[in-house]
């Protein structure tokens, strides 16, 4: 026997440590595997959601017919008494499958006709299955999807085509223009009328302010003051009436324009026949997208797929967020994250500099450090409660009292908004920034500090010119961590300003352009809303994945940019080690 051969397991275990290698390596592999699986799940479901599927037509044995897209296929246990009622062929198949039967979840759409978005169909219920070439799927502004056979293309109530080819030709010819008209109408409603409403609101506030002044003057019982206030109030009232007349005119003009547009685009429509034999006319402007799903080439499908992604990224949500795009949520998330970084980074860095460079290291600083580290472990919802209670209800309410008294009892800053949200998240991520800045400052070699002092520099000059630049990459790391955490946080935002549907964006073209008091949409909250608050959950779940994918993508993108900057800083300020 070789004299170096292993003697017994115990010694082998202690001396070689190979089992430890397996243990630690295994731990790593399991963690990686879980993360990879999670990403794959999100990727598969998120990416696949928008791929256009075919339309299936089921003729059922009870005489009914349903049509739609199959979204899920699964096996389920059929009760024994049910199996006995099946015909021989089905019975044999089910028994062969250990009593399990196959069933399909079909997205049948046509909600306004059938009150259903989805329907389960078991294999034994089907008498005939078909993929009709003339079946069309529509994505609509309202009521979700529509599945049907086109019958007539209608202009001004008269049919102009009644064969598939003719209808499609007319669709191609008019659809884009009609949609353009419709979009113009929406932009007038949102843009010009919105602006007008803002103006009216502003004037009304002026009037109200004058009235408040007048009331105050009456209370003071000072005749001079009362006279002054009365004169002012009268003047503003007159101005307001004048203004009202003017805006009424403007308003009427806009309404007129809208009506004209409406008349122009509402006359086009397509009459459809559904699988269960009902007739339904769909207006052309309501159709976001329509296609004959069963005759698409790969190129057509790719086009629809990309088109849907573009819509998702750039459009506003429809149908309780389960359709359309998430642009307001993307925008809100990014604006909120940027604001949060603007608050948290300077504060965190300054605090860390004080603790590391100025304060004498001792018990108090140690306790402070422990406290800060523990702050990172406080459940984030607590921050939300604090943000709501302190920022919105205390600070915001005071601001309202002082500057927005005329709007009360409607709160301006006294409720959740993007400012309070970003401040709350800044508080939440402060420990991360402080801790990583401290670490970065720790890593600055003392020889550099001494070199600077030896040149006659003061403490602040040393911090400013030597320590901070050198610690910058580490500070960036903290910033990255804070950003990732902040962008993915949902719970506190539910309390301090994220909403399901924000009527206005936090940044827009109305003066003063940045509206910090507004509530906003946030991707994280959007995911929560889709997944748990949605009426049409079967349609919403795929959107959850797609939105999650997008959120991950945005966080990764922000990270990549920050890491790029950090690496450049590192090259500049730390260089190679000699």
């Amino acid at each position, binding site marked *: 026997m070789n004299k170096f051969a292993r003697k017994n397991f115990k010694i082998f275990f202690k001396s070689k440590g190979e089992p430890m290698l397996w243990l630690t390596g295994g731990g790593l592999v399991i963690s990686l595997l879980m993360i990879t699986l999670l990403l794959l799940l999100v990727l598969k479901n998120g990416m696949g959601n928008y791929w256009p599927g075919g339309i299936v037509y089921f003729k059922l044995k009870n005489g009914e017919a349903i049509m739609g897209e199959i979204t899920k296929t699964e096996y389920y246990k059929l009760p024994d008494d049910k199996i006995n009622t099946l015909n021989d062929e089905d019975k044999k198949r089910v028994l062969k499958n250990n009593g399990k039967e196959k069933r399909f979840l079909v997205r049948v759409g046509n909600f306004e006709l059938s009150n259903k978005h989805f329907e389960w169909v078991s294999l034994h219920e089907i008498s005939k299955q078909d993929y009709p070439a003339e079946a069309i799927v529509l994505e609509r502004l309202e009521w979700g999807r529509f599945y049907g056979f086109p019958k007539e293309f209608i202009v001004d109530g008269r049919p102009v085509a009644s064969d598939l080819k003719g209808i499609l030709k007319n669709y191609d010819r008019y659809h884009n223009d009609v949609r353009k008209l419709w979009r113009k109408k929406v932009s007038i409603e949102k843009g010009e009328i919105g602006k007008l409403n803002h103006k009216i609101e502003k004037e009304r506030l002026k009037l109200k302010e004058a009235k408040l002044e007048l009331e105050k003057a009456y209370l003071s019982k000072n005749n001079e003051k009362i006279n002054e206030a009365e004169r002012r109030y009268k003047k503003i009232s007159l101005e307001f009436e004048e203004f009202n007349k003017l805006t009424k005119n403007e308003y009427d003009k806009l309404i007129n324009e809208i009506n004209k547009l409406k008349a122009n685009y509402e006359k086009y429509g397509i009459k459809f026949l559904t699988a269960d034999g009902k007739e339904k006319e769909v207006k052309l402007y309501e159709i976001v997208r329509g296609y004959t799903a069963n005759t698409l080439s790969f190129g057509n499908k790719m086009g629809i797929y990309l088109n849907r992604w573009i819509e998702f990224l750039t459009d506003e949500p429809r149908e309780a967020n389960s359709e359309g795009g998430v642009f307001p949520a993307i925008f809100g998330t990014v604006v909120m994250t940027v604001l949060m970084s603007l608050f948290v980074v300077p504060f965190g860095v300054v605090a860390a500099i004080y603790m590391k460079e100025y304060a004498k290291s001792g018990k108090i600083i140690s306790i402070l450090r422990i406290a800060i580290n523990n702050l990172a472990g406080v459940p984030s919802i607590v921050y939300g409660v604090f943000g709501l209670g302190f920022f919105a209800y205390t600070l915001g309410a005071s601001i309202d009292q002082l500057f927005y008294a005329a709007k009360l009892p409607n709160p301006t800053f006294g409720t959740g908004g993007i400012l309070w949200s970003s401040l709350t998240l800044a508080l939440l991520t402060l420990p991360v920034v402080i801790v990583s800045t401290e670490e970065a400052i720790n890593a600055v070699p003392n020889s*550099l500090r001494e*070199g600077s002092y*030896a040149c006659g520099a003061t403490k602040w000059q040393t911090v400013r010119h030597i320590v901070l*630049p050198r610690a910058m990459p580490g500070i960036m790391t903290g910033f990255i961590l804070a950003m990732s955490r902040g962008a993915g946080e949902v719970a506190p935002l539910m309390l301090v300003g994220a909403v399901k549907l924000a009527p206005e964006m936090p940044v827009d073209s109305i003066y003063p352009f940045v509206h910090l008091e507004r509530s906003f949409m946030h991707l994280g909250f959007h995911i929560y809303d889709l997944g748990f608050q949605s009426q049409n959950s079967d349609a919403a779940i795929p959107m959850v994945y797609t939105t999650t994918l997008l959120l991950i993508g945005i966080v990764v993108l922000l990270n990549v940019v920050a890491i790029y900057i950090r690496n450049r800083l590192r090259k500049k300020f730390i260089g190679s080690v*000699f």
Partner: protein
Amino acid sequence: MTELLEELKNNEKKTVYDPLLKDENIIIDIKDFNLYYGNKQALFKINMQIPKGKVTALIGPSGCGKSTLLRSINRLNDLLDYVRVEGDILLDGESVYDRSVDLSELRKKMGMVAQKPNPFPMSIYDNVVYPLKINGVKKKSILDEVCERSLSYAGLWDEVKDRLKENAFGLSGGQQQRLCIARAIAPEPEVILMDEPCSALDPIATYKIEELILSLREKFTVVIVTHNMQQAARVSDFTAFMYMGFLVEYGNTINIFKKPKVKDTEDYITGRFG
């Protein structure tokens, strides 16, 4: 060895001085200087006069307090709040440890070169003019001139003149150390303090730095800590031998190396020490 220490501690024996020092013009006068790190005393009753315009070397086994003494001169030890000093150090007859002393003003008069090259995280140009910039010198013409003069003096100008705006970390170790020397002489100090400036460098870079030290002698007073006997012998005019916080022998380098008066100095120089 222990005998000597006992004697020094009990104040029976004094540092042995070489009489030649008497003829020199004194710039730094260290008087009965004690230094404590917390409770631990690191320097004992140092009395030492450093001549102007000469190179003075501090030698001795590691941990004997050479760096501590050097850093006492420009008060870098003050950065540690647990350091306490007794006695005084005079620069040009003025107390360095006086309450009214402005540390920035003081350190402007003393450039320092550290053991490991410590270029700042900025460009070569900014490194050299850093001491001037923090003192409020803004005029570009002055900065440019100082930069060129200092770099030329440090023998680095020809090597870096085309990449002054580049990061200082791109230089080799020897170049970085010469850059640090250029930075130290930029504000035209009176004294340059060097703490083992060659210990992190290869022989060729070391040779260049030694040449540079010899040329610095014309304009500046140099105090250099070294653990390399040959280096001390090559570059210094005066040598001080320290041991365990005491100044044992101090005098003309030639005398110290040729015929040391104290046996321990001889043992240390010849490598029989310990």
